[in-house]
């Protein structure tokens, strides 16, 4: 069953005085099945972030539609959008986006507090997640006391605590060193094995090689896609690398 369907998505940015317009997404269509782990790759400026913002309903597309669990995002009234994001989507960002006035625990609680849950319920939900991510001992610390990897794990815990149908990750390894990257990708993989649907936007081949499927975006369209199937991550790495080379040297789709 398709959890997320994207049909002919188009996003055009117009400059303030309506003079020039920039096409960020031209005609993007794809779907994500329940339990999938999808990576979207592309060079900077290829429209990755625009796509993610549209998927998160943070930005309205110019045309086309996005269906989440058969519900068209465009039909959700703007008043309920925040609640929709809170209930169905989890976010992990490149720069973590933790709030420095909150402790680790409160950062994780944030979406649940906004949803009006009681402390006991929040704690009950948070405990297994924090333990699995290895941040249970850090709960009372503040973001400025954490390493990059610890911050990102806190952000993942915050994304998971609402038990989202879809976890969206925007360059999650972008600000991490290689060992923290490795551990984050293992975490994602483990989450996926437990049934969590993941959609990750990245330009790191290493990160994308962990995904089950990789989509390549170029010039605002889905240019190419690769399935991992039963290959090893190393083999996938090479395939992605080749695909990217082909992409940048201007090879065409039928290659």
């Amino acid at each position, binding site marked *: 069953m398709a959890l997320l369907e994207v049909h002919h998505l188009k996003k055009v940015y117009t400059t303030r005085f309506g003079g020039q317009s920039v096409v960020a997404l031209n005609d993007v269509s794809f779907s994500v099945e329940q339990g999938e782990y999808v990576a979207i790759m592309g060079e900077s400026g290829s429209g990755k972030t625009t796509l993610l913002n549209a998927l998160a309903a943070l930005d309205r597309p110019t045309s086309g539609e996005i269906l989440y669990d058969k519900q068209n995002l465009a039909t959700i009234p703007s008043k309920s959008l925040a609640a929709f994001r809170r209930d169905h989507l989890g976010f992990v960002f490149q720069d973590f986006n933790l709030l420095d*006035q909150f402790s680790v625990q409160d950062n994780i609680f944030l979406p649940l507090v906004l949803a009006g849950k009681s402390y006991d319920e929040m704690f009950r939900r948070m405990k297994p997640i924090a333990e699995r991510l290895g941040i249970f001992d850090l709960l009372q610390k503040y973001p400025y006391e954490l390493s990059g990897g610890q911050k990102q794990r806190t952000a993942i815990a915050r994304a998971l605590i609402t038990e989202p149908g879809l976890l969206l990750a925007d360059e999650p390894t972008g600000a991490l060193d290689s060992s923290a990257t490795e551990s984050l990708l293992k975490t994602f993989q483990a989450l996926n094995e437990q049934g969590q649907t993941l959609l990750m936007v990245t330009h790191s081949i290493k990160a994308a090689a962990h995904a089950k499927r990789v989509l390549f975006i170029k010039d605002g369209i889905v240019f190419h896609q690769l399935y991992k199937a039963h290959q090893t991550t190393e083999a996938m790495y090479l395939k992605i690398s080749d695909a990217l080379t082909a992409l940048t040297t201007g090879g065409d789709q039928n290659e």
Partner: protein
Amino acid sequence: MNRLRLYSRLAARNMVKNSRFYFPYLLTCIATSAMFYIMGFLANNPALDVMTGGTTLGQMLSLGVGVIGIFSVIFLFYTNSFLIKRRKQEFGLYNLLGMEKHHIANMLFFETLYAAFISISVGLLTGILFSKLMLLLLFKVVGALTPMGFYISISSIRATITLFALTFVAILLFTALQIRLSQPIALIKGGQVGEREPKGSRVITAIGFLTLFAGYILALKVESPLDALFTFFIAVLLVIVGTYALFISGSIALLKWLRKRKSYYYRPNHFTAVSGMFYRMKQNATGLASICILSTMVLITVSTTFSLYVGMEDIIETRFPTDFSVTLKDASNEQINQTLADIRNIVETNGQTLSNLSTYRMLSFSVTRQGNQLSVDVENTASNDFQIFYALTAEEFNALTGESVQLSGNDALCFTSMKTPFENGTLQIGEMYSLVGMLDSFPVIQDEPSLGVDVIGLVVADETALQALNAYNEQAYGSEESAIQGVLNFDTDGSAQDKRILSSQITDLVKQPVTYSYIDGNGETQTVTTYVAWMSAKEDDRMNFYTLYGGFLFLGIYLGAIFLMATVLIIYYKQISEGFSDQPRFEIMQKVGMSADEVRQSIRSQVLIVFFLPLAFAVLHVAVAFKMMSQLLGVLNLYNVPLYFICSVITLLIFAVVYTTVYMRTARTYYKIVSGSL
């Protein structure tokens, strides 16, 4: 040459681009320089020279010029520091892009030049434009005839230009020095240095509570005006210390406590508000405490001057029970009657009638009480430990009160405002008097008890006894100066103008100078001229009162307005600069599922607290100070407590309205910044 053009154009563009910060700053500079000019214009106005009491008023206003001058300098420095803090990132970027620090300084030179030019020229123009209006207001308030013509004070223009030009030079040097001393990376990071959990010290919180309560209790325990005079400064100091300690440390302690209460803290609106307030209080506690103190001062100054002005008629009634009061030194009954006949003659010649007449002879000097003994302590006249002694003969007492007291020998009736009684019913002052009765009131006493000065009054048998007391005083002072006074109090009908004419004629009649010589300690002969009689007329003093209290009121409101402007601007800047650092936070919250409405509400509650916390505390301070301030007003003869209450409430309301207007404007701008639409 070309380069200069580049800098000047860069400077102009910077000012336009940063107009959100520059505009309020320039407005402040313009307003302060205009107000400085106007105050200087008023203080040196030639119209004051021809006005009764104009010199005093001029001196008072000159004091105002000084206060505004000092305040302007501090205030401009302060607002400029906000501006620079916000722009550090910009400077850092210029620096990284290859602009050297002295290039930035050159650019800043032009910015300051423009700012100075705009502020001083527009400020002076505004000042000149409004100066006549202010002059009219001042003259209206002090009840003087309005002067004609338009006048521009060159000396005040010169003073304004000098003060503000120097201030701008100092600001430029200070900013340039700051940039010189800083590293480009530090500049770029500017606002976003590590956010640490603030620490609220329990000791400081406790000190804050203690000092605040001590100050409050002192203020509430004040019983007399003299008490109020002594405790006023201590109480004010304690409250200031307490306010700062509580704002800085107490606020954090309170927030920590709230955070521990999980069922309260983990609610959607409390969650963001409490944690947001942590950082707000950490950065703003000192500023908010200053705003609180400043607001309290404005409220108290304006409400007291306001009620003094409104209650002036009361004060005059208390000070002058009758229209005229003539006092004759060392007068016999015959002299009193003669003077009365002369006065009656003058009044009638002017076609008016004399009424409410009372005449009496009394004796009055200051004494020091020890047990049952009163003595004249010539050595120690400067000490606080003294009482005022009054004496009347039984005959005078009966005439004034309508009673029929008969006394003989050294028998006496006694009145005292002191709490310790005279034991054994005796009182020694020179001779020993046996007190055959105590009185609840004494007719000739004026306002001493309300000032906290104790009074002892004695009704003695006859003229012989009165002369004996006088002899004791003369002997103690070793002079021939009699302490016996003849007093004539009376009203007349007729207009204020008639009374003024009468006043000068009666003064001519009674105020005969007497010259006498004595040999001083060096063996030289000294000649002294004194008057054996003096007169006070309500009408003459009314004008002095109007000049004095009207001047107070004008100055109070004028300075109050400036302080209010400062308060408002400081808060505005604080909120704006916070908006920029809060923007990423609210962006994140929206991403994790906070709706725009929730963001707006959270912002509203936080800005509301930051805004109204100082005001709430200021109102509390004013309320607690109320008793003490009404006692202090008693020193100035204002006993009308309800009037002071109404004046306080009116002042408070006006202040709150201005404050709220600014709040609404600020909250809107803040929201725009945070929601990223700027």
